[in-house]
């Protein structure tokens, strides 16, 4: 699906470089940033989208992301692996047990001595507790479970730990964020800190928060992970992409979660 609508390319060529208009209004809903944030206010990516795209997110029935939520819900109840367990066997009703969980990842793992994100946590449950095969990144199963679990935290403010053992990984994530890279020599900050609210070609740049992920992207015509989005961003500035679940992206995920601390989880969000 990721090459969907290549036919749009030619039409796009006629439409680009109309950008660099100031289309941003300062009265968008926002929340105060965490201490030390470079941003004066935190604005969800939702606020940068058109009314039509927002409408897709606003109604849980017409939001196609809920197809993934429902898939995850089924998987939650389905036993898998040699131990004969399902997620439900240990965690019971996800509505109770998973409430708030998705809002605080990545977390520090004593076992590995580094942060792990929610995808990795789910697969650790599978391999260690269920004795099942881990799910492949971006597989319908892992995306379904991710979306289902994060959805249990919808409305809960993002809150990650960055102190103690997390601190060096947080710093590494920040370093990644500000590192210019690729043929275009651009950092994450080039778009999402210095120029949010501006139009790049015909696309309005957001603050690049992660609170809506996994998110249904119109471009993808499906739900995708935050790391898929990272890879897209890196490719777009003609830089090397890192692997799904790589240390680089986990650290960036941690730093990005901190940048959006206080924004409510919106999973499954709908974005352009």
């Amino acid at each position, binding site marked *: 699906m990721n090459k969907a609508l290549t036919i749009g390319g030619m039409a796009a060529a006629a439409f680009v470089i109309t950008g660099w208009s100031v289309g941003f209004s300062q009265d968008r809903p926002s929340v105060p940033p965490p201490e030390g944030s470079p941003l004066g206010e935190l604005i969800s990516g939702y606020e940068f989208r058109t009314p039509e795209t927002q409408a897709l997110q606003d109604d849980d029935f017409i939001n196609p992301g809920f197809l993934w939520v429902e898939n995850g819900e089924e998987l939650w109840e389905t036993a898998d692996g040699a131990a004969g367990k399902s997620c439900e066997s240990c965690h019971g009703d996800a509505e109770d047990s998973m409430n708030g969980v998705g809002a605080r990842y990545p977390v520090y793992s004593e076992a590995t001595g580094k942060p792990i994100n929610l995808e990795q946590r789910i697969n650790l449950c599978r391999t260690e507790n269920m004795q099942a095969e881990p799910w492949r990144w971006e597989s319908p199963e892992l995306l379904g479970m991710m979306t289902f679990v994060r959805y249990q935290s919808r409305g809960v403010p993002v809150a990650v730990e960055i102190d103690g053992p997390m601190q060096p990984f947080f710093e590494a994530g920040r370093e990644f964020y500000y590192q210019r890279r690729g043929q275009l020599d651009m950092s994450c900050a080039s778009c999402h800190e210095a120029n949010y609210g501006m139009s790049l070609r015909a696309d309005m740049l957001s603050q690049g928060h992660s609170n809506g992920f996994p998110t249904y992207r119109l471009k993808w*015509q499906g739900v995708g992970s935050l790391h898929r989005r990272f890879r897209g961003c890196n490719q777009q500035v003609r830089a090397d992409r890192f692997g799904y679940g790589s240390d680089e992206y986990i650290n960036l995920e941690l730093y990005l979660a901190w940048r959006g601390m206080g924004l409510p989880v919106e999973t499954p969000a709908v974005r352009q």
Partner: protein
Amino acid sequence: MAGVRPRVRVPKEAAKGEVVEIKTLISHQMESGQRRDSKGEIIPRQIINTFTCTFNGDEVFSADWHGAISANPYMQFFMTAEESGTFEFTWKDDDGSVYTETAELTVN
């Protein structure tokens, strides 16, 4: 096609003569037949080509879909509620698969 998931939303109850709104969504890639794979080969079309809604066996609304219908196709339409009964929704896939879903409506 495996893993296709239909969703429908209709009111449970309606007054006689009321026009009720019906919303449906189904998970499907709707491969348009207009794309090429990494080897440059055309990816064959595989879409849901027909959608039908009946109520107590009578057709209320139907649609022909082409490759330009978005993935995870959505369809919204209406029906006048005259008597209690059962909606049946049917989606027909290019590969011959048929997906169905039903919903009940009570008319007061």
